[in-house]
């Protein structure tokens, strides 16, 4: 009883967050009933006509849907793979630097692009990636080759997305690994040094095994993102000529829902994505808990 009284303030503290979450996180969950309605905003959730699974049938009968699901999956998975490999390598390289000040300065620089919005970066990249004005285009022209149209060629577009996303996020991604690297017990290196192991051997036999658990954990946790191909980036960089390979579920939801106002159909697409993501997230958190004892809370 005394404990309950003492803990009352804790409940009060949580109240504001709970109210905000109830409205803006939980009500939308209920709003997903629109996926089973021919939703009409003037009639609202209760008087719109119920259509069962018609919206889902309609979505999967559209010629582009499977392609869009594939585009989403392809771009997202490529990003996940690059998003682990590149930061691990850069963290290892930074870790080999002995001049701590210089290393800090480089870290500060590579973290920075993470904090710029895709609106700003798209404004810059439309220039940088242009075949006629961009640095890459100029390099190709200087070599006498035809400059690639990185944002306008449907064959190249997904790779442009993977590359630019990796560029933006790799620095920020190194933070976790650098922390793990500084946490390695120095006596391990000491012992290896006495045994005559050089720098390369030390890296191979001490550094890499020591950060493997965190690399595994980050890989498992990344699995929840298999359908997150990056709406902000793609919306700001794509154009109809690359829809064939660059259109993803999120952009499709936007165009069906916000531009064509087919709310029921768009909600159905969104719900499909949410359900798949939910299953993947459950799997990844489950695995992470089982193998590394990781808990979100």
């Amino acid at each position, binding site marked *: 009883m005394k404990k309950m009284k*003492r*803990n009352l303030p*804790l409940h009060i*503290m*949580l109240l*504001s*967050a*709970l109210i*905000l*979450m109830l*409205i*803006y*996180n939980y*009500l939308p*969950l209920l*709003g*997903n009933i629109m996926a089973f309605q021919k939703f009409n905003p003037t009639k609202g959730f209760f008087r719109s006509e119920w259509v069962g699974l018609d919206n889902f049938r309609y979505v999967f009968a559209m010629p582009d849907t499977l392609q869009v699901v594939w585009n989403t999956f392809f771009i997202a998975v490529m990003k996940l793979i690059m998003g682990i490999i590149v930061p691990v390598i850069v963290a290892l*390289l*930074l870790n*080999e*630097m*002995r001049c701590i000040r*210089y290393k800090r300065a480089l870290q*500060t*620089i590579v973290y*920075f692009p993470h*904090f*710029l*919005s895709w*609106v700003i970066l798209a404004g*810059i990249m*439309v*220039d*940088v990636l*242009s*075949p006629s*004005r961009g640095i890459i285009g*100029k390099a190709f022209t200087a070599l006498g080759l035809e400059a690639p149209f990185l944002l*306008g060629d449907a064959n190249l577009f997904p790779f442009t997305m993977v590359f630019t996303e990796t*560029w933006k996020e790799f620095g920020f991604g190194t933070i*976790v690994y650098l*922390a793990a690297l500084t946490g390695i017990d120095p006596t391990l290196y000491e012992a290896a040094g006495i045994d005559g192991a*050089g*720098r390369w051997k030390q890296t191979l036999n001490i550094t890499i095994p020591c950060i493997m658990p965190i690399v595994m954990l980050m890989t498992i946790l990344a699995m929840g993102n298999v359908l997150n191909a990056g709406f*902000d980036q793609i919306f*700001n960089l794509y*154009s109809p000529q690359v829809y064939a390979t660059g259109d993803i579920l999120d952009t499709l939801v936007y165009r069906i*829902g*916000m531009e064509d106002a087919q*709310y029921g159909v*768009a*909600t159905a697409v*969104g719900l499909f*994505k*949410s359900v798949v993501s*939910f299953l993947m*997230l*459950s799997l990844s958190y489950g695995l992470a808990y089982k193998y590394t004892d990781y*808990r979100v*809370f």
Partner: protein
Amino acid sequence: MDHQRRIRTTGRASVGVRIFSVFNYIFVTLIALTCLLPMVNLLAISFSSSSAVSTGQVSFWPVDFTLESYSFMAGKPEFFASMKISVLRILLAVPLSMIVSVLAAYPLSRQNHEFGARKYYVWIFIVPMMFYGGLIPSYMVVRNTGLIDSIWALVLPCSINVFNIILLMNFFRSIPKELEEAAAVDGAGHFRILLQVVLPVSTPVLATVLLFFIVNHWNSWFDGLIYMNSPSKYPLQTYLQTQVVNRALMALEAMRDIRRMGNISDRTGKAAQIFLAAVPVLAVYPFLQKYFTTGIVMGSVKG
């Protein structure tokens, strides 16, 4: 750390190791430069004359230095009006988000045996992380709560960020229990412990979360696009998205004839607008960045 460094450098610094070191320094420096140069290029363009830019002379230093593009912007009141909306949004949203997040993180940082209801509350926070309500349902909620065209549509829906709450919670957990226990013995309640014991030692994580909230709010553009019907209510990034970036994409779409893009004369003006939109992030970043690695690392490692 110092110890480790000494041991590792006193090992035989063979020729191979030295060569590797040199290449390593050069390679990582080049990578880091790629993160910086696009901004430098943008800045150089914004200070150059239109003709120098359209003939492709500008790379990392202004050519025919001029303030033309910035004076051109002075004649664009929409730009500054949208900037005002972004600032107002941050002034409203960041304090609200900080308070709500800290207040939620503290109870969640208690142990289960101490605060029995914690295990139920935790699930309320996990569900939204696992299952996204979706764009259209979220839009309908904002619309049905009457927030369309209101600044609060840019403030309230994104005020809770579970990731930030987890960062705070984990940091609070890592604070030595003795400090709080001593205060509790003196009869301090939870509010006083939070204010007088926990918060004063939590600067790194508070700075980190503050940086994340400020940058997130400054950078958001999509909510402005869908929740604001009239462009006069757009925050800065939405204004940029619709007026600058999207226009360039439309041009991209219209042309297979690539060369025409080179003649767009407002490139310097565009660069100036994009650069000014990035200035606040550039300005807060150096002050807060010294905290955020500690904040993130302490916050994501379990105590």
